[in-house]
Protein backbone atom coordinates (compact mmCIF):
# COMPACT_ATOMS: atom_id res chain seq x y z
CA UNK A 1 0.00 0.00 0.00
CA UNK A 2 2.72 2.44 0.93
CA UNK A 3 4.53 3.34 -2.25
CA UNK A 4 8.15 4.43 -2.53
CA UNK A 5 6.86 7.90 -3.20
CA UNK A 6 4.82 8.05 -0.01
CA UNK A 7 7.70 6.58 1.99
CA UNK A 8 10.01 9.34 0.82
CA UNK A 9 7.33 11.88 1.70
CA UNK A 10 6.97 10.29 5.13
CA UNK A 11 10.68 10.64 5.77
CA UNK A 12 10.56 14.34 4.89
CA UNK A 13 7.61 14.80 7.23
CA UNK A 14 9.37 13.12 10.13
CA UNK A 15 12.68 14.87 9.53
CA UNK A 16 12.01 18.22 11.27
CA UNK A 17 10.88 16.58 14.51
CA UNK A 18 13.83 14.19 14.53
CA UNK A 19 16.25 16.98 13.68
CA UNK A 20 15.19 19.41 16.43
CA UNK A 21 15.12 16.68 19.05
CA UNK A 22 18.52 15.39 17.94
CA UNK A 23 20.03 18.87 18.24
CA UNK A 24 18.26 19.44 21.56
CA UNK A 25 19.60 16.20 22.95
CA UNK A 26 23.09 16.13 21.53
CA UNK A 27 24.42 19.68 21.57
CA UNK A 28 23.86 20.60 25.24
CA UNK A 29 24.64 17.09 26.45
CA UNK A 30 27.97 17.06 24.59
CA UNK A 31 28.78 20.45 26.07
CA UNK A 32 28.01 19.18 29.57
CA UNK A 33 30.16 16.12 28.91
CA UNK A 34 32.98 18.38 27.71
CA UNK A 35 32.73 20.69 30.75
CA UNK A 36 32.65 17.71 33.09
CA UNK A 37 36.28 17.02 32.22
CA UNK A 38 37.31 20.65 32.57
CA UNK A 39 38.18 22.89 35.47
CA UNK A 40 35.80 25.72 34.61
CA UNK A 41 35.01 28.37 37.21
CA UNK A 42 33.97 31.60 35.45
CA UNK A 43 33.90 33.66 38.65
CA UNK A 44 37.59 32.98 39.20
CA UNK A 45 38.34 33.16 35.47
CA UNK A 46 39.67 29.60 35.59
CA UNK A 47 39.43 27.49 32.47
CA UNK A 48 41.50 24.32 32.16
CA UNK A 49 40.01 22.26 29.33
CA UNK A 50 41.19 18.82 30.47
CA UNK A 51 41.66 17.63 34.02
CA UNK A 52 40.58 14.03 33.46
CA UNK A 53 38.16 12.51 35.90
CA UNK A 54 39.01 14.90 38.75
CA UNK A 55 35.50 16.42 38.79
CA UNK A 56 33.87 13.02 38.93
CA UNK A 57 36.19 11.91 41.72
CA UNK A 58 35.58 15.01 43.81
CA UNK A 59 31.84 14.94 43.12
CA UNK A 60 31.59 11.29 44.13
CA UNK A 61 33.77 11.63 47.21
CA UNK A 62 32.17 14.81 48.55
CA UNK A 63 29.89 14.27 51.53
CA UNK A 64 27.23 16.40 49.87
CA UNK A 65 26.94 13.84 47.05
CA UNK A 66 26.18 10.94 49.37
CA UNK A 67 23.71 12.98 51.41
CA UNK A 68 22.03 14.29 48.25
CA UNK A 69 21.54 10.75 46.96
CA UNK A 70 20.10 9.69 50.32
CA UNK A 71 17.79 12.72 50.32
CA UNK A 72 16.71 12.01 46.75
CA UNK A 73 15.92 8.39 47.58
CA UNK A 74 13.98 9.36 50.70
CA UNK A 75 12.04 12.03 48.87
CA UNK A 76 11.20 9.95 45.80
CA UNK A 77 10.54 6.85 47.92
CA UNK A 78 8.28 8.70 50.34
CA UNK A 79 6.27 10.33 47.58
CA UNK A 80 5.93 7.03 45.72
CA UNK A 81 4.69 5.25 48.85
CA UNK A 82 2.03 7.88 49.56
CA UNK A 83 0.86 8.22 45.97
CA UNK A 84 0.77 4.48 45.18
CA UNK A 85 -0.97 3.35 48.38
CA UNK A 86 -3.26 6.38 48.37
CA UNK A 87 -3.83 6.06 44.62
CA UNK A 88 -4.89 2.40 44.83
CA UNK A 89 -7.26 3.10 47.71
CA UNK A 90 -8.72 6.17 46.04
CA UNK A 91 -9.13 4.38 42.71
CA UNK A 92 -11.04 1.56 44.42
CA UNK A 93 -13.14 4.10 46.31
CA UNK A 94 -13.98 6.12 43.19
CA UNK A 95 -15.02 2.92 41.46
CA UNK A 96 -17.79 2.32 44.02
CA UNK A 97 -21.38 3.29 43.29
CA UNK A 98 -22.07 6.78 44.62
CA UNK A 99 -23.88 10.01 44.00
CA UNK A 100 -21.97 12.75 42.21
CA UNK A 101 -19.06 10.58 41.14
CA UNK A 102 -18.03 13.02 38.43
CA UNK A 103 -17.72 15.88 40.90
CA UNK A 104 -15.67 13.85 43.38
CA UNK A 105 -13.34 12.92 40.53
CA UNK A 106 -12.90 16.56 39.63
CA UNK A 107 -12.11 17.43 43.26
CA UNK A 108 -9.53 14.65 43.53
CA UNK A 109 -7.80 15.45 40.24
CA UNK A 110 -7.55 19.20 40.77
CA UNK A 111 -4.16 19.37 42.58
CA UNK A 112 -2.37 17.97 39.52
CA UNK A 113 -3.18 21.14 37.59
CA UNK A 114 -1.88 23.56 40.18
CA UNK A 115 1.49 24.97 39.16
CA UNK A 116 4.35 23.77 41.41
CA UNK A 117 5.28 27.23 42.70
CA UNK A 118 1.68 27.93 43.72
CA UNK A 119 1.17 24.67 45.57
CA UNK A 120 4.53 24.96 47.33
CA UNK A 121 3.82 28.53 48.46
CA UNK A 122 0.24 27.84 49.51
CA UNK A 123 1.35 24.88 51.63
CA UNK A 124 4.37 26.71 52.99
CA UNK A 125 2.52 29.83 54.10
CA UNK A 126 -1.07 28.92 54.65
CA UNK A 127 -0.63 25.45 56.14
CA UNK A 128 2.90 24.90 57.45
CA UNK A 129 3.63 28.42 58.72
CA UNK A 130 4.19 28.22 62.45
CA UNK A 131 2.55 31.57 63.27
CA UNK A 132 -0.37 31.79 60.87
CA UNK A 133 -0.62 28.38 59.23
CA UNK A 134 -3.78 26.32 59.49
CA UNK A 135 -1.90 23.38 60.99
CA UNK A 136 -0.81 25.58 63.88
CA UNK A 137 -4.45 26.43 64.62
CA UNK A 138 -5.30 22.76 64.39
CA UNK A 139 -2.50 21.86 66.81
CA UNK A 140 -3.56 24.63 69.19
CA UNK A 141 -7.18 23.51 69.00
CA UNK A 142 -6.06 20.02 70.01
CA UNK A 143 -4.08 21.52 72.87
CA UNK A 144 -0.68 20.77 71.33
CA UNK A 145 2.38 22.93 70.82
CA UNK A 146 2.50 24.46 67.33
CA UNK A 147 5.03 22.67 65.16
CA UNK A 148 7.33 24.40 62.69
CA UNK A 149 7.03 21.92 59.86
CA UNK A 150 9.42 23.41 57.34
CA UNK A 151 12.32 23.81 59.72
CA UNK A 152 11.75 20.76 61.92
CA UNK A 153 10.56 18.26 59.32
CA UNK A 154 11.53 19.93 56.04
CA UNK A 155 11.92 16.75 54.03
CA UNK A 156 8.55 15.42 55.17
CA UNK A 157 6.93 18.78 54.40
CA UNK A 158 8.20 18.71 50.82
CA UNK A 159 7.14 15.09 50.48
CA UNK A 160 3.62 16.08 51.56
CA UNK A 161 3.48 18.95 49.06
CA UNK A 162 4.70 16.92 46.11
CA UNK A 163 2.65 13.85 47.05
CA UNK A 164 -0.44 16.06 47.11
CA UNK A 165 0.35 17.13 43.55
CA UNK A 166 1.01 13.62 42.24
CA UNK A 167 -1.69 11.65 44.08
CA UNK A 168 -4.27 12.65 41.43
CA UNK A 169 -2.02 11.36 38.66
CA UNK A 170 -1.62 7.95 40.30
CA UNK A 171 -5.34 7.83 41.14
CA UNK A 172 -6.43 8.68 37.61
CA UNK A 173 -4.23 6.05 35.98
CA UNK A 174 -5.05 3.36 38.53
CA UNK A 175 -8.75 4.18 38.21
CA UNK A 176 -8.48 3.59 34.47
CA UNK A 177 -6.93 0.21 35.24
CA UNK A 178 -9.51 -0.67 37.91
CA UNK A 179 -12.33 0.08 35.52
CA UNK A 180 -10.94 -2.35 32.97
CA UNK A 181 -11.25 -5.19 35.48
CA UNK A 182 -14.13 -7.43 34.49
CA UNK A 183 -16.85 -7.42 37.10
CA UNK A 184 -17.72 -11.05 36.28
CA UNK A 185 -14.43 -12.23 37.63
CA UNK A 186 -14.98 -10.34 40.85
CA UNK A 187 -18.53 -11.57 41.16
CA UNK A 188 -17.44 -15.15 40.65
CA UNK A 189 -14.93 -14.75 43.45
CA UNK A 190 -17.59 -13.21 45.62
CA UNK A 191 -19.96 -16.12 44.91
CA UNK A 192 -17.21 -18.54 45.87
CA UNK A 193 -17.16 -16.80 49.20
CA UNK A 194 -13.78 -15.07 48.88
CA UNK A 195 -13.67 -12.31 51.48
CA UNK A 196 -12.98 -8.72 50.44
CA UNK A 197 -9.35 -8.74 51.45
CA UNK A 198 -8.39 -11.86 49.54
CA UNK A 199 -10.31 -10.61 46.50
CA UNK A 200 -8.10 -7.54 46.74
CA UNK A 201 -4.86 -9.53 47.10
CA UNK A 202 -5.49 -12.24 44.53
CA UNK A 203 -7.56 -10.53 41.85
CA UNK A 204 -7.45 -6.74 42.03
CA UNK A 205 -3.81 -6.19 42.95
CA UNK A 206 -2.37 -8.55 40.29
CA UNK A 207 -4.62 -6.87 37.73
CA UNK A 208 -3.25 -3.47 38.77
CA UNK A 209 0.39 -4.52 38.89
CA UNK A 210 1.19 -3.29 35.40
CA UNK A 211 -0.46 0.08 35.92
CA UNK A 212 1.34 0.41 39.26
CA UNK A 213 4.67 -0.29 37.56
CA UNK A 214 3.96 2.35 34.93
CA UNK A 215 2.97 4.90 37.57
CA UNK A 216 6.14 4.18 39.58
CA UNK A 217 8.41 4.55 36.56
CA UNK A 218 6.81 7.71 35.16
CA UNK A 219 6.63 9.37 38.55
CA UNK A 220 10.22 8.45 39.33
CA UNK A 221 11.41 10.14 36.18
CA UNK A 222 9.50 13.32 36.99
CA UNK A 223 10.28 13.19 40.72
CA UNK A 224 14.02 12.83 40.18
CA UNK A 225 13.97 16.36 38.84
CA UNK A 226 11.78 18.03 41.48
CA UNK A 227 12.96 21.59 41.58
CA UNK A 228 10.43 24.38 42.10
CA UNK A 229 9.01 22.92 45.32
CA UNK A 230 12.47 22.89 46.93
CA UNK A 231 13.38 26.25 45.42
CA UNK A 232 10.51 28.15 47.06
CA UNK A 233 10.30 26.27 50.36
CA UNK A 234 13.76 25.51 51.75
CA UNK A 235 16.09 26.45 48.90
CA UNK A 236 17.94 23.20 49.51
CA UNK A 237 18.64 23.84 53.20
CA UNK A 238 17.92 21.55 56.19
CA UNK A 239 18.72 18.30 54.42
CA UNK A 240 16.42 18.79 51.46
CA UNK A 241 19.17 19.04 48.86
CA UNK A 242 18.47 16.41 46.24
CA UNK A 243 20.89 15.43 43.50
CA UNK A 244 19.09 17.72 41.06
CA UNK A 245 19.30 20.59 43.49
CA UNK A 246 22.96 19.94 44.29
CA UNK A 247 23.84 20.09 40.61
CA UNK A 248 21.84 23.29 40.21
CA UNK A 249 23.72 24.87 43.14
CA UNK A 250 27.13 23.82 41.84
CA UNK A 251 26.39 25.14 38.37
CA UNK A 252 24.46 28.36 38.98
CA UNK A 253 25.14 29.35 42.59
CA UNK A 254 28.80 28.48 43.16
CA UNK A 255 29.52 28.57 39.42
CA UNK A 256 31.76 25.53 39.50
CA UNK A 257 30.78 24.41 36.03
CA UNK A 258 33.17 21.46 35.81
CA UNK A 259 32.02 19.90 39.06
CA UNK A 260 28.37 20.63 38.37
CA UNK A 261 28.60 19.16 34.89
CA UNK A 262 30.08 15.94 36.28
CA UNK A 263 27.10 15.83 38.66
CA UNK A 264 24.78 16.52 35.72
CA UNK A 265 26.18 13.58 33.78
CA UNK A 266 25.72 11.35 36.83
CA UNK A 267 22.09 12.51 37.10
CA UNK A 268 21.57 11.74 33.41
CA UNK A 269 22.95 8.23 33.85
CA UNK A 270 20.78 7.54 36.90
CA UNK A 271 17.64 8.79 35.13
CA UNK A 272 18.46 6.67 32.11
CA UNK A 273 18.54 3.51 34.19
CA UNK A 274 14.94 4.15 35.26
CA UNK A 275 13.98 5.23 31.74
CA UNK A 276 15.28 1.96 30.30
CA UNK A 277 12.72 -0.05 32.26
CA UNK A 278 9.91 2.29 31.28
CA UNK A 279 10.86 2.19 27.61
CA UNK A 280 10.77 -1.59 27.64
CA UNK A 281 7.18 -1.63 28.92
CA UNK A 282 6.09 1.10 26.51
CA UNK A 283 7.84 -0.66 23.61
CA UNK A 284 6.11 -3.95 24.35
CA UNK A 285 2.77 -2.21 24.35
CA UNK A 286 3.48 -0.64 21.00
CA UNK A 287 3.56 -4.07 19.38
CA UNK A 288 -0.02 -5.01 20.15
Amino acid sequence: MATEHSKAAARIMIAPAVFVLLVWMLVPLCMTLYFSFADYRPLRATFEPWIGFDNYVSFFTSSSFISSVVTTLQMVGGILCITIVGGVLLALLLDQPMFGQGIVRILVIAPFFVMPTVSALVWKNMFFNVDNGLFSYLYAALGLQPYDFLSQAPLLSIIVIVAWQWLPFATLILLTAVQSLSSEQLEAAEMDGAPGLSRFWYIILPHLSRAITVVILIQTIFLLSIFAEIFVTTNGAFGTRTLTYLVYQRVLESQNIGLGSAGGIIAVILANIVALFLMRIVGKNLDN
Partner: protein
Amino acid sequence: MARAITTRKKIMWTALSWGIGLLIFFPILWTFLTSFKSEATAIADPPVWFLFDWTTVNYTDVLERSNYPLALTNSIIIALGSTLLGIIIAVPAAWAMAFVPGKRTKDVLLWMLSTKMLPAVGVLYPLVLIAKYFGILDSRILMVVILMLINLPIIVWMLYTYFREIPVDILEAARMDGANLKSEILYVLTPMALPGIASTILLNIILAWNEAFWTILLTTVSAAPLTKFIASFSAPEGLFYAKLSAASMMAIAPILIMGWFSQKQLVRGLTFGAVK
Protein backbone atom coordinates in the same frame (compact mmCIF):
# COMPACT_ATOMS: atom_id res chain seq x y z
CA MET B 1 -26.25 -5.47 37.13
CA ALA B 2 -26.03 -8.75 38.93
CA ARG B 3 -25.14 -7.22 42.24
CA ALA B 4 -27.89 -5.40 43.99
CA ILE B 5 -26.63 -2.19 45.49
CA THR B 6 -28.46 -1.09 48.55
CA THR B 7 -29.16 2.59 48.85
CA ARG B 8 -27.64 2.56 52.29
CA LYS B 9 -24.35 1.27 50.94
CA LYS B 10 -24.40 3.84 48.20
CA ILE B 11 -24.97 6.65 50.66
CA MET B 12 -22.10 5.38 52.76
CA TRP B 13 -19.71 5.33 49.81
CA THR B 14 -20.96 8.76 48.76
CA ALA B 15 -20.26 10.26 52.16
CA LEU B 16 -16.80 8.71 52.38
CA SER B 17 -15.81 9.75 48.84
CA TRP B 18 -17.07 13.28 49.21
CA GLY B 19 -15.26 13.62 52.51
CA ILE B 20 -11.94 12.48 51.09
CA GLY B 21 -12.47 14.40 47.86
CA LEU B 22 -13.08 17.64 49.76
CA LEU B 23 -10.05 16.98 51.97
CA ILE B 24 -7.80 16.64 48.91
CA PHE B 25 -9.37 19.70 47.30
CA PHE B 26 -9.21 21.70 50.52
CA PRO B 27 -5.94 23.64 49.89
CA ILE B 28 -7.40 24.99 46.65
CA LEU B 29 -10.71 25.83 48.32
CA TRP B 30 -8.89 27.56 51.17
CA THR B 31 -6.82 29.59 48.72
CA PHE B 32 -10.01 30.56 46.94
CA LEU B 33 -11.67 31.70 50.17
CA THR B 34 -8.57 33.53 51.39
CA SER B 35 -8.29 35.44 48.15
CA PHE B 36 -11.55 37.23 49.00
CA LYS B 37 -10.57 38.16 52.56
CA SER B 38 -8.83 41.23 53.85
CA GLU B 39 -5.21 40.61 54.89
CA ALA B 40 -6.24 40.83 58.55
CA THR B 41 -9.05 38.30 58.16
CA ALA B 42 -6.72 36.00 56.22
CA ILE B 43 -4.58 35.40 59.31
CA ALA B 44 -7.38 35.74 61.87
CA ASP B 45 -7.19 33.42 64.88
CA PRO B 46 -9.35 31.33 64.86
CA PRO B 47 -9.61 30.99 61.06
CA VAL B 48 -12.70 32.50 59.46
CA TRP B 49 -14.50 30.19 57.06
CA PHE B 50 -17.30 31.78 55.06
CA LEU B 51 -18.69 34.59 57.16
CA PHE B 52 -16.51 37.55 56.34
CA ASP B 53 -16.78 40.65 54.19
CA TRP B 54 -16.05 39.27 50.77
CA THR B 55 -13.85 41.67 48.84
CA THR B 56 -12.23 41.66 45.43
CA VAL B 57 -9.66 44.23 46.47
CA ASN B 58 -6.83 41.65 46.41
CA TYR B 59 -7.50 40.88 42.78
CA THR B 60 -7.51 44.53 41.75
CA ASP B 61 -4.41 45.13 43.89
CA VAL B 62 -2.47 42.32 42.30
CA LEU B 63 -3.58 43.37 38.83
CA GLU B 64 -2.69 47.03 39.31
CA ARG B 65 0.37 47.14 41.50
CA SER B 66 2.63 44.37 40.36
CA ASN B 67 4.13 42.76 37.34
CA TYR B 68 1.17 40.44 37.22
CA PRO B 69 -0.22 41.53 33.83
CA LEU B 70 3.21 41.10 32.24
CA ALA B 71 3.63 37.65 33.79
CA LEU B 72 0.18 36.64 32.63
CA THR B 73 0.92 37.83 29.12
CA ASN B 74 4.20 35.92 29.16
CA SER B 75 2.51 32.75 30.38
CA ILE B 76 -0.08 32.95 27.62
CA ILE B 77 2.46 33.66 24.90
CA ILE B 78 4.86 30.96 26.07
CA ALA B 79 2.19 28.28 26.58
CA LEU B 80 0.36 28.98 23.31
CA GLY B 81 3.51 29.66 21.30
CA SER B 82 5.34 26.53 22.36
CA THR B 83 2.21 24.43 21.80
CA LEU B 84 1.55 25.78 18.32
CA LEU B 85 5.18 25.44 17.28
CA GLY B 86 5.20 21.90 18.63
CA ILE B 87 1.99 21.01 16.77
CA ILE B 88 3.35 22.37 13.49
CA ILE B 89 6.43 20.16 13.79
CA ALA B 90 4.67 17.15 15.29
CA VAL B 91 1.57 16.76 13.09
CA PRO B 92 3.47 15.80 9.91
CA ALA B 93 5.77 13.47 11.85
CA ALA B 94 2.94 11.72 13.70
CA TRP B 95 0.87 11.53 10.52
CA ALA B 96 3.71 9.90 8.61
CA MET B 97 4.46 7.41 11.38
CA ALA B 98 0.81 6.46 11.82
CA PHE B 99 -0.10 6.04 8.15
CA VAL B 100 3.18 5.15 6.46
CA PRO B 101 4.86 3.07 9.17
CA GLY B 102 8.33 1.87 8.32
CA LYS B 103 10.62 -0.68 9.91
CA ARG B 104 12.12 1.89 12.22
CA THR B 105 8.98 3.79 13.21
CA LYS B 106 8.85 2.13 16.61
CA ASP B 107 12.50 2.90 17.29
CA VAL B 108 12.04 6.53 16.31
CA LEU B 109 9.04 6.87 18.61
CA LEU B 110 10.85 5.31 21.53
CA TRP B 111 13.93 7.40 20.90
CA MET B 112 11.84 10.57 20.89
CA LEU B 113 10.33 9.51 24.19
CA SER B 114 13.78 8.89 25.63
CA THR B 115 14.72 12.54 25.04
CA LYS B 116 11.90 13.42 27.45
CA MET B 117 13.66 11.43 30.17
CA LEU B 118 16.76 13.62 30.04
CA PRO B 119 17.08 15.41 33.41
CA ALA B 120 17.02 19.14 32.88
CA VAL B 121 19.93 19.89 35.22
CA GLY B 122 22.14 17.78 32.98
CA VAL B 123 21.94 20.43 30.27
CA LEU B 124 21.35 23.52 32.39
CA TYR B 125 24.65 25.33 31.96
CA PRO B 126 25.01 24.72 28.21
CA LEU B 127 21.54 26.20 27.76
CA VAL B 128 22.54 29.27 29.76
CA LEU B 129 25.65 29.64 27.61
CA ILE B 130 23.78 29.18 24.33
CA ALA B 131 21.11 31.67 25.41
CA LYS B 132 23.79 34.20 26.39
CA TYR B 133 25.63 33.66 23.11
CA PHE B 134 22.51 34.48 21.10
CA GLY B 135 21.53 37.26 23.53
CA ILE B 136 18.15 35.65 24.24
CA LEU B 137 18.43 35.03 27.96
CA ASP B 138 15.17 36.13 29.62
CA SER B 139 13.31 36.27 26.30
CA ARG B 140 9.97 34.80 25.32
CA ILE B 141 11.39 33.21 22.19
CA LEU B 142 13.86 31.19 24.27
CA MET B 143 11.09 29.89 26.54
CA VAL B 144 8.85 29.10 23.57
CA VAL B 145 11.60 27.05 21.94
CA ILE B 146 12.70 25.23 25.10
CA LEU B 147 9.17 24.35 26.22
CA MET B 148 8.35 23.23 22.69
CA LEU B 149 11.38 20.92 22.75
CA ILE B 150 10.69 19.37 26.14
CA ASN B 151 7.06 18.69 25.23
CA LEU B 152 7.55 17.69 21.60
CA PRO B 153 7.93 13.96 22.41
CA ILE B 154 4.61 13.98 24.25
CA ILE B 155 2.90 15.84 21.41
CA VAL B 156 4.21 13.45 18.76
CA TRP B 157 3.32 10.48 20.89
CA MET B 158 -0.23 11.60 21.67
CA LEU B 159 -0.95 12.56 18.06
CA TYR B 160 0.43 9.22 16.92
CA THR B 161 -1.94 7.29 19.18
CA TYR B 162 -4.89 9.37 17.98
CA PHE B 163 -3.99 9.10 14.30
CA ARG B 164 -3.58 5.36 14.56
CA GLU B 165 -7.21 5.08 15.55
CA ILE B 166 -8.31 6.58 12.25
CA PRO B 167 -9.34 3.66 10.02
CA VAL B 168 -7.01 3.31 7.04
CA ASP B 169 -9.82 1.89 4.89
CA ILE B 170 -11.25 5.36 4.62
CA LEU B 171 -8.02 6.61 3.11
CA GLU B 172 -8.03 3.79 0.59
CA ALA B 173 -11.60 4.53 -0.36
CA ALA B 174 -10.66 8.15 -0.89
CA ARG B 175 -7.74 7.13 -3.05
CA MET B 176 -9.98 4.92 -5.15
CA ASP B 177 -12.18 7.91 -5.73
CA GLY B 178 -9.14 9.67 -7.11
CA ALA B 179 -8.20 11.83 -4.17
CA ASN B 180 -4.61 13.02 -4.25
CA LEU B 181 -2.44 13.49 -1.20
CA LYS B 182 -3.52 17.07 -0.72
CA SER B 183 -7.24 16.47 -0.77
CA GLU B 184 -6.71 13.29 1.22
CA ILE B 185 -5.20 15.32 4.03
CA LEU B 186 -7.55 18.26 3.68
CA TYR B 187 -10.94 16.61 3.32
CA VAL B 188 -10.59 13.12 4.75
CA LEU B 189 -7.96 13.13 7.40
CA THR B 190 -8.15 16.58 8.94
CA PRO B 191 -11.78 16.36 10.07
CA MET B 192 -11.09 13.00 11.70
CA ALA B 193 -7.84 14.12 13.26
CA LEU B 194 -9.09 17.42 14.67
CA PRO B 195 -10.46 16.07 17.99
CA GLY B 196 -7.14 14.35 18.71
CA ILE B 197 -5.18 17.46 17.80
CA ALA B 198 -7.44 19.55 20.02
CA SER B 199 -6.91 17.27 23.05
CA THR B 200 -3.18 17.27 22.44
CA ILE B 201 -3.14 21.06 22.33
CA LEU B 202 -5.13 21.21 25.56
CA LEU B 203 -2.83 18.90 27.52
CA ASN B 204 0.26 20.59 26.15
CA ILE B 205 -0.92 24.05 27.15
CA ILE B 206 -1.39 22.71 30.69
CA LEU B 207 2.09 21.21 30.78
CA ALA B 208 3.72 24.34 29.35
CA TRP B 209 1.78 26.65 31.67
CA ASN B 210 2.95 24.76 34.76
CA GLU B 211 6.57 24.12 33.73
CA ALA B 212 8.71 25.39 36.61
CA PHE B 213 12.36 24.59 35.98
CA TRP B 214 13.40 26.42 32.85
CA THR B 215 10.90 29.23 33.42
CA ILE B 216 12.34 29.93 36.88
CA LEU B 217 15.99 29.63 35.98
CA LEU B 218 16.17 31.20 32.54
CA THR B 219 13.92 34.22 33.00
CA THR B 220 14.21 37.24 35.28
CA VAL B 221 11.52 39.83 34.59
CA SER B 222 10.75 40.62 30.98
CA ALA B 223 9.96 37.03 29.96
CA ALA B 224 9.00 35.73 33.40
CA PRO B 225 5.72 33.79 33.31
CA LEU B 226 3.39 33.21 36.26
CA THR B 227 5.44 30.32 37.68
CA LYS B 228 8.37 32.68 38.18
CA PHE B 229 6.16 35.58 39.28
CA ILE B 230 4.54 33.49 42.02
CA ALA B 231 7.93 32.23 43.17
CA SER B 232 8.85 35.85 43.93
CA PHE B 233 6.20 35.77 46.70
CA SER B 234 8.30 33.35 48.73
CA ALA B 235 9.24 35.95 51.38
CA PRO B 236 8.53 34.25 54.72
CA GLU B 237 6.39 36.73 56.64
CA GLY B 238 2.62 36.90 56.85
CA LEU B 239 0.33 39.83 56.03
CA PHE B 240 0.22 38.99 52.37
CA TYR B 241 -1.77 35.77 52.36
CA ALA B 242 -4.80 37.32 50.70
CA LYS B 243 -2.76 38.80 47.86
CA LEU B 244 -0.77 35.60 47.44
CA SER B 245 -4.08 33.73 47.25
CA ALA B 246 -5.53 36.12 44.69
CA ALA B 247 -2.40 35.89 42.52
CA SER B 248 -2.45 32.09 42.89
CA MET B 249 -6.12 31.77 41.96
CA MET B 250 -5.62 33.82 38.83
CA ALA B 251 -2.60 31.70 37.93
CA ILE B 252 -4.32 28.34 38.35
CA ALA B 253 -7.98 28.98 37.51
CA PRO B 254 -7.77 28.80 33.71
CA ILE B 255 -5.63 25.67 33.83
CA LEU B 256 -7.83 24.02 36.45
CA ILE B 257 -10.81 24.42 34.14
CA MET B 258 -8.88 23.13 31.14
CA GLY B 259 -7.54 20.27 33.23
CA TRP B 260 -11.00 19.10 34.21
CA PHE B 261 -11.85 18.79 30.54
CA SER B 262 -8.69 16.86 29.75
CA GLN B 263 -8.80 14.06 32.36
CA LYS B 264 -8.92 11.30 29.78
CA GLN B 265 -6.21 12.82 27.61
CA LEU B 266 -4.01 13.05 30.65
CA VAL B 267 -3.89 9.27 31.04
CA ARG B 268 -3.17 8.81 27.36
CA GLY B 269 -0.67 11.63 27.09
CA LEU B 270 1.40 10.89 30.15
CA THR B 271 1.51 7.10 30.08
CA PHE B 272 2.41 6.86 26.39
CA GLY B 273 -0.24 4.24 25.78
CA ALA B 274 1.11 1.91 28.47
CA VAL B 275 -2.18 2.05 30.39
CA LYS B 276 -5.45 1.76 28.52
